[in-house]
């Protein structure tokens, strides 16, 4: 068993035009910086990206947007990225906006073999259009379907050679549920350690969900809104 890859370029091997990718992170926090840059270099086009946001104009998924590699975004939030909003309003980019919790749960469901489930979010709004509705306990709910991806790109703080992942603080966000939902899940980590180093009681993503892992380099970890007291 060898899940360890030497570089992002090797780890993303197999990504092709038109594929569906999940990309972890919330804003610029916990995004797979190395994998995104490798995708930029690879130049694959026509991608459908499932990611809560699309980075900012010049960082994160914003780089792929700018380079017109993305055909469709499935996200919950556009704000903070002027290019994203511009492409959306100009109709140059297909965008499916999904409530944030529904998005996270649809990813988890994709990994957990649950093809569909009911949630209340979005009832009565345009999100409900065309969706099956049903009342539970007198409250209307929408049927939402699982999401999966050809590749899921996630970023963790530490990972081991078995693919076990540990996140730091709020850098987990969507990485955990997306790691579960990739047909091939590629994890990049700040520190790659030998199996047996991480405490088995505190693994956020067990290795069974991770097919490839590599130690990333040169993390910028940009902050969108430095706020101090």
């Amino acid at each position, binding site marked *: 068993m060898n899940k360890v890859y030497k570089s992002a370029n090797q780890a993303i091997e197999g990504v092709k035009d038109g594929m569906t990718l999940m990309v972890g992170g919330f804003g610029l926090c916990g995004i797979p910086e190395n994998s995104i840059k490798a995708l930029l270099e690879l130049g694959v086009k026509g991608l459908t990206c499932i990611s809560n946001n699309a980075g900012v104009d010049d960082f994160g998924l914003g780089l792929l947007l700018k380079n017109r590699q993305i055909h469709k975004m499935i996200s919950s*939030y*556009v704000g903070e990225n002027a290019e994203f909003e511009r492409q959306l309003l100009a109709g140059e980019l297909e965008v499916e*906006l999904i409530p944030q919790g529904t998005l996270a749960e649809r990813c988890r469901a994709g990994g957990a073999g649950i093809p569909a489930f009911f949630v209340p979010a*979005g009832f*009565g709004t345009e*999100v409900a259009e065309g969706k099956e509705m049903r009342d539970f306990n007198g409250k209307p709910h929408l049927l939402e379907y699982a999401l999966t991806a050809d590749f899921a790109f996630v970023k963790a703080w530490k990972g081991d050679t078995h693919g076990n992942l540990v996140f730091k*603080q*709020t850098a987990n966000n969507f990485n955990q549920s997306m790691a579960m939902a990739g047909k091939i899940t590629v994890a990049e980590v700040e520190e790659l350690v030998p199996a047996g180093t991480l405490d088995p009681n505190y693994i956020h993503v067990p290795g069974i969900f991770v097919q490839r892992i590599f130690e990333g380099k040169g993390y910028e970890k940009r*902050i969108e809104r430095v706020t101090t007291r």
Partner: protein
Amino acid sequence: MALTKEQIAQRIAQELQDGYYVNLGIGIPTLVANYIPEGMQVILQSENGILGMGQFPLPEEVDADLINAGKQTVTVNAGASFFDSSLSFAMIRGGHVDLTVLGAFEVTDSGDIASWKIPGKMVKGMGGAMDLVASARNIIVAMQHCSKDGESKLLKKCTLPLTGINCVKRIVSDLAVIEVTDRGFKLLERAPGVSTESIIAATAAPLIVEGEIPEMNLPVW
């Protein structure tokens, strides 16, 4: 006089109770954290994965891996926990959050809210707002009563795409505290010095006014 944003936050803070788990949206709602009454323990949830969010960091404490749902750097208090987005929204959807405070473009007298999109002009996306309004046990909207052009934002029917329906329980605006009842908007309190008549005039939907309407009780500051 119309309330400042800080005063709106201050008034909303009066709705807090000890032991409450509270989710504060971006903008005015975030300011509510500054007015939690002394000695009261309120635990702030940030939907990107924090329970027990604290104040903003000192410059030397800033950490890219520790942000709130507004993408601002934050800190956490003793007893905090971090978790992934699916568990975060399990808390929200499961009704474990006691109070949600969020902003809005428009609110109706049946509790509908619009807050995420202005067709053709601006799309922010709903983020976690649709999940929050669909499931929160108690929802307070913090907002300006009227737009910059003087148009009322408290309507009979939203003109903008909805975030949720029949969900808003209370509105704290710069002019008034208004409850959303089965019969529509009901005026509870006036901003200090603001007349009932001017609130009625600034509210596009009918406003139930019963008896003498007290002024908000805001500490002098």
